[in-house]
């Protein structure tokens, strides 16, 4: 059963595209046609042509190579941040639901408040204090990013734990571990993974915006966000500097979201965007 579900999710267009992107990015040093930092002022701001498939930037560097190399930073920082918030969020959410009581209440309040805070402002503050860099990026965004995951995990775990069938299991003598393993985890795993996929896409864009603002990736490294910042002043002459990295971010984010949606559909849900936390009115 699980194998069938897994194959239905993984054998799909978005998954293949993502796989291709990942492979290509990892292999960037091997397959990129040019050195991404090699400048050639004679060849500046070209559009796509046979020599430079995606054109060149303001310093004559090959855009395609830069996209491939930049992807390494963009994708890895987004991945680490997503994994970090997934781990922290899941653990905290499960703990809160299992403990219950006032600890749970406090956790919910804290969660509510964190959700109301604008992510990027917090990130800006932390970067101001700690200075830019890879780990600062992960931390500054991660410190708030685990909140929706924790909320989702806690809600779903609490929901399962309050069902009649779990009560029945407990009453016939099921151990805590039995309930966790058979009732809670299967229920929680799917939606959490789907949401993680969605979060990855959103974080990719968010982290890219930090680089765009200059407080993310630092020179000499570059990523898709910083490429966009560099390309902007010259956009009139060659919009391709904007289109290439922009399309890269869009492609990955879109595919990942579609993948998350697919997971949700396969598990019988409606839409992955629907799983974002929000207050509910009980009428």
């Amino acid at each position, binding site marked *: 059963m699980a194998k069938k579900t897994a194959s239905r999710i993984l054998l799909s267009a978005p998954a293949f595209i993502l796989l291709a992107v990942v492979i290509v990015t990892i292999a960037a040093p091997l397959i990129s046609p040019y050195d991404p930092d090699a400048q050639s002022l004679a060849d500046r701001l070209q559009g796509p042509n046979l020599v430079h498939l995606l054109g060149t930037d303001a310093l004559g560097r090959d855009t395609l190579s830069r996209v491939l190399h930049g992807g390494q930073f963009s994708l890895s920082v987004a991945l680490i941040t997503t994994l970090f918030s997934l781990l922290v969020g899941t653990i905290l959410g499960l703990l809160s639901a299992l403990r219950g009581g006032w600890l749970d209440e406090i956790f919910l309040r804290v969660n509510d408040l964190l959700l109301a*805070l604008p992510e990027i402002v917090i990130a800006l503050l932390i970067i101001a204090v700690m200075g830019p860099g890879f780990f600062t990026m992960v931390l500054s965004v991660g410190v708030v990013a685990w909140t929706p995951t924790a909320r989702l995990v806690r809600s779903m775990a609490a929901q399962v734990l309050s069902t009649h069938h779990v009560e029945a299991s407990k009453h016939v003598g099921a151990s805590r571990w039995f309930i966790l393993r058979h009732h809670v985890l299967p229920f929680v795993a799917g939606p959490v993974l789907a949401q993680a996929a969605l979060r990855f896409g959103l974080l990719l864009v968010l982290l890219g915006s930090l680089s765009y603002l200059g407080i993310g990736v630092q020179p000499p490294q570059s990523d898709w966000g910083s490429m966009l910042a560099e390309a902007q002043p010259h956009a009139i002459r060659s919009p391709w500097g904007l289109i290439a990295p922009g399309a890269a971010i869009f492609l990955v984010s879109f595919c990942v979201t579609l993948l998350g949606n697919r997971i949700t559909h396969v598990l019988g849900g409606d839409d992955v965007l629907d799983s974002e936390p929000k207050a*509910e009115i009980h009428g």
Partner: protein
Amino acid sequence: MLRRVVGLGAAVLLSSFAVFLVPFVSPGDPVRSLLRARMDFGEADEATVQAYAEQFGLHDPMLVQFGRWLGRFFTGDMGLSHISGTPVADQVLPAIGVTLSLAGGALLAAILVSILLGVISATRAGQWPDKLITSITHALIAIPEYALAPLLVLLFAVRWALLPSAGYDSPASLVLPVFILALRPISFFTVAVRSGVRQALDSEHVLAARARGLSRTQALARHVVPHGLLPLWTMVGVWFAGLLGGSVIVEVIFAIPGMGRLIFDAITDADIPVAQGGVVVVVTCAVLVTGIIDLIHKLSDPNVRIGVRHG
């Protein structure tokens, strides 16, 4: 109810405390930082630093200093900008107005568009309008606004000269920023409306209403849509708060003098008082807005009990 208010108050206090700590944790001498915030000329000599520390009780426990700082803050004295020397409050207050109107406009646009798209999507579930709208909503959240915005500027401002490329002067100058800011909320809101209306459609309310002789449209308007929109209202509060900060990028790209840009500039210029002032004001607004919307929900329907669900 009281719990809620206390919770929100705690949020403001905690975040202000975190902001207050910034000069103490960032590189550089905290006393000098603070001094620069109080005087309108550059660096001071050692004697002045010591005198200042004595006079303003900078060796007192942290909490006492925090209390004093906070007190000054809320009476309007946020210190002086490191860069311009002018009072921070004079910069922050107009900026928050700008950002509020930007966020408000985007939210309003998003609500209207998403109701339309969501209802269409729900009533034609499974058919091509639904599939199209669903694909679009998923695509919208994936678009990096810092790529889209310049491209749109290129198109509308440069090539076709329809809209201004930057600034905050005319209504036309707000079109692109509001549009871009509204894209992500539109996605999430549309999905929420769609799922809410779908659920309402499937419910037995509709069956009974039609059995009373109401036509499809009447049943939709009177019974389905009002119920279906409930999830939307609950999201609005959280998103408004999010947009207050999330407008940073848009303000930077379009050179709009809002809070987001103010904070960002302050941070890159190491203008700590302005950054502090900005963040505290933004967080307070975000928390206030969420609280007010909660209050409206509670008042408009006493049967209502707000809990957060996973969706």
